[in-house]
């Protein structure tokens, strides 16, 4: 096996509410496709309310890339189409039936197919949308030549799901998925694992791919720092990124010919009574899986982890690329002299609070900003937790100034908004860095196309 890459910079945030390693199966009653999950997609609907659909039935497609379709993960009926301001398509809600009918896309051995037929199968089934491109974090362009494909086999974000546990017993489908992906690139398919924590044979025995070992604190489990360490993206290059669970679903498509929408998601956070794993469908309604399992304080529901996830309602749905739901207390309380009190219940990266005295304590953090927004004052701290060969503050400022030349020179193509999550967490100036980078990348994507 290859050498171990140690990612030295980072920070582990220990929170209350890690998922216990038990799986409960919950049938999804309502699921939704959310076009807003897919950056840059301009959705064109193919169904209307009341239509019957099967698993694999196309629901909508991208107006500008009409071969990219999005299909229903379950069989049932389109019960509601939610639109927002200017009739923007927000959610297509499907009520699942018990028949679990599925369109047949044909069984095939991916090792015997060529790139075109693998691509076609993935596009038709809608699973192509699970392959993301970097830079810009958009759905991969089927005609592009990615220089490599990256799959991170561990997640060390706060309360992140344990992929060893999720992938257990799914070696066949995972390998089939990898075989399909190897057809899509002339470069390597990289499966990145943790050098000590990854024990599952599913990942360790992956064949025909490059297995890379990593260690280090969060965000060493994110693809961003992994790509930067192995093969950083230069201007004009693209790499593709796939989540291990989606690799399994891709594998299932080839093994069974059907769209498999099964997803094991971690229910985490301090406001979940029994944090655990739940086997259900992608796009599931939070209410279906959380209903009796949450505390009665004011809560924030997050699809994803507390650092990079997106806020949803209890009646909302799991995001297309998320494998975790986090429930946190809303932090609307005012704290008397909170800025100078010892605050032993608070976690901080800095030694000016006292959480460094209790390194193993798990914290129950709420969503309070813990201070007002200010200009950048503190320097040198972002660099301590940012595992890229990039000057983060200079890059953020270049993005704010919409200076494209400078953004390119400082390495904007190597990062995504999520790579800045930790910086946003530790920012004493409380600046919304992820949304600055996100907007900057969107600006760049539109200018460059």
């Amino acid at each position: 096996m290859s050498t171990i890459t140690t990612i030295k910079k980072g920070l582990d945030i220990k929170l209350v509410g890690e998922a216990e390693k038990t799986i409960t199966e919950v049938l999804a009653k309502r699921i939704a496709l959310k076009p807003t999950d897919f950056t840059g997609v301009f959705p064109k609907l193919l169904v209307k309310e009341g239509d019957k659909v099967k698993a694999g039935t196309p629901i909508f497609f991208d107006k500008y890339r009409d071969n990219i379709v999005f299909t229903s993960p379950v069989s049932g009926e389109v019960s509601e189409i939610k639109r927002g301001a200017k009739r923007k398509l927000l959610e297509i809600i499907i009520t699942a039936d018990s028949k679990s009918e599925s369109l047949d896309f044909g069984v095939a051995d991916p090792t015997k197919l060529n790139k075109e037929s693998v691509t076609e199968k993935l596009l038709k089934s809608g699973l192509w949308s699970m392959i993301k491109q970097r830079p810009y974090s958009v759905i991969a362009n089927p005609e592009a030549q990615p220089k490599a494909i990256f799959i991170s086999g561990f997640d060390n974000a706060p309360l992140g799901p344990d992929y060893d546990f999720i992938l257990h017993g799914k070696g066949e489908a995972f390998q089939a998925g990898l075989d399909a992906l190897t057809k899509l690139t002339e470069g390597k398919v990289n499966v990145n694992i943790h050098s000590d924590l990854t024990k599952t044979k599913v990942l360790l025995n992956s064949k025909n791919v490059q297995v890379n070992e990593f260690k280090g604190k969060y965000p060493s489990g994110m693809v961003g720092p992994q790509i930067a360490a192995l093969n950083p993206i230069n201007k004009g290059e693209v790499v593709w990124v796939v989540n291990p669970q989606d690799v399994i679903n891709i594998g299932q498509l080839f093994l069974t010919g059907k769209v498999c929408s099964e997803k094991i998601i971690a229910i985490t956070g301090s406001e979940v009574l029994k944090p655990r794993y739940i086997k259900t469908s992608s796009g599931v309604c939070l209410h279906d899986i959380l209903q009796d399992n949450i505390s009665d304080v004011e809560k924030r529901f997050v699809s994803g982890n507390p650092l990079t996830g997106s806020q949803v309602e209890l009646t909302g749905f799991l995001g297309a690329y998320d494998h975790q739901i986090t429930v946190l207390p809303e932090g609307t309380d005012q704290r008397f002299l909170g800025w100078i009190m010892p605050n032993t219940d608070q976690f901080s990266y800095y030694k000016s609070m006292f959480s460094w005295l209790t390194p193993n304590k798990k914290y129950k953090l709420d969503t309070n900003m813990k201070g007002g927004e200010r200009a950048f004052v503190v320097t040198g701290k972002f660099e301590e937790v940012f595992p890229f060969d990039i000057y983060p503050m200079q890059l953020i400022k270049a993005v704010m100034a919409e200076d494209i030349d400078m953004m390119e020179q400082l390495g904007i193509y190597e990062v995504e908004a999520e790579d800045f999550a930790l910086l946003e967490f530790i920012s004493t100036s409380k600046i919304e860095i992820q949304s600055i980078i996100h907007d900057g990348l969107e600006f760049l994507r539109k200018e460059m196309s």
Partner: protein
Amino acid sequence: MKALQKFMDKVRPNFQKGGKYQYLHSTFDAFDTFLFVPGHVTKKGSHIRDGVDLKRTMFLVVIAAMPALLFGMWNVGYQHFLNINETATFMETFFYGFLKVLPLVIVSYVVGLGVEFIFAQMRGHEVNEGYLVSGFLIPLIIPVSTPLWMVGLATIFAVIIGKEVFGGTGMNIVNPALLARAFLFFAYPSQMSGDKVWIAEQVDGTTGATPLGHLLTATDKLPELPSVMESFIGTIPGSVGETSTLAILIGAVILLFTGIASWRVMFSVFAGGYLMGLVFNLIGANAYMTLPAHMHLLIGGFAFGAVFMATDPVSAAQTNRGKYIYGFLIGLMAVLIRVVNPAYPEGMMLAILLLNVFAPLIDHYVVAGNIKRRLNRMKKIAA
């Protein structure tokens, strides 16, 4: 606390848009957020946030500068009683200095915060806490006999020209506290140097020149200077907070432990100053040049500048490599100006202000290295 919170909740609408005292919104907000960390929740991005904010960071600098202030107060008394040849108890000594220094602190804070509040109100911003630090540092770097109106004037100049014209805390180019001192130094030189200003109420005919003052007038042999120990403890004349290297080092430990000040800057300022001192020792062309290098670090405002002024993150270099260069050049320039330039006894202030201006340039070249690395990687692939 509940009662106070209720009261604030009750009066808050008066200060918000459409309220009776809308024009005092920023001012009210400053007190409100001082009392209670607001219940604002995250909207985008990370849902959880670090417990530390800028208020806490800034306040820790004030705590770190506290030993220097307290020692300074005692030393003001000590120098006074030494000057009039009287003995006094510790408390009398301290209390005398306390009464002399406190007005300086009050004027600096009241005037400076007043300007800050007005600007925040005009811009509709929250009041920034940056002045908590600047306002504390200004009284520490001026002679105790500075008239209060001068302190007020210098403060107004520093806050407006040094900070607000650039957009407030975080946007300034030079360190505002040092700018206040520079203003006084150039506008009222007789109040800022010489041997008359360092002692609160001087008896005629006595002198209380600082070691730097003595050195400046030295011609062929070193004047009689305070011992290393006296300079380290700080029982020598000088600006209020700068005399005691010991008290400053206590502050340095706090700043370095909490990571608020950059050790890179601090270390390289001392290294630069020491090295330049050694170089002068080697040359040894006049008496000043033969001053032992370590004395440079102990006398005058060198230590105070290195710990509290050069490390100001806004006006310092922002890249780690840049911080070494920035700090080193400050130390070097400070000693160079002291020894070579006959007009300015204290080189630290000018050295820091000069490097404040050059910090963006240093950063520019450091960042250019990163850019070049990226371009080379591209070229290698293209080839």
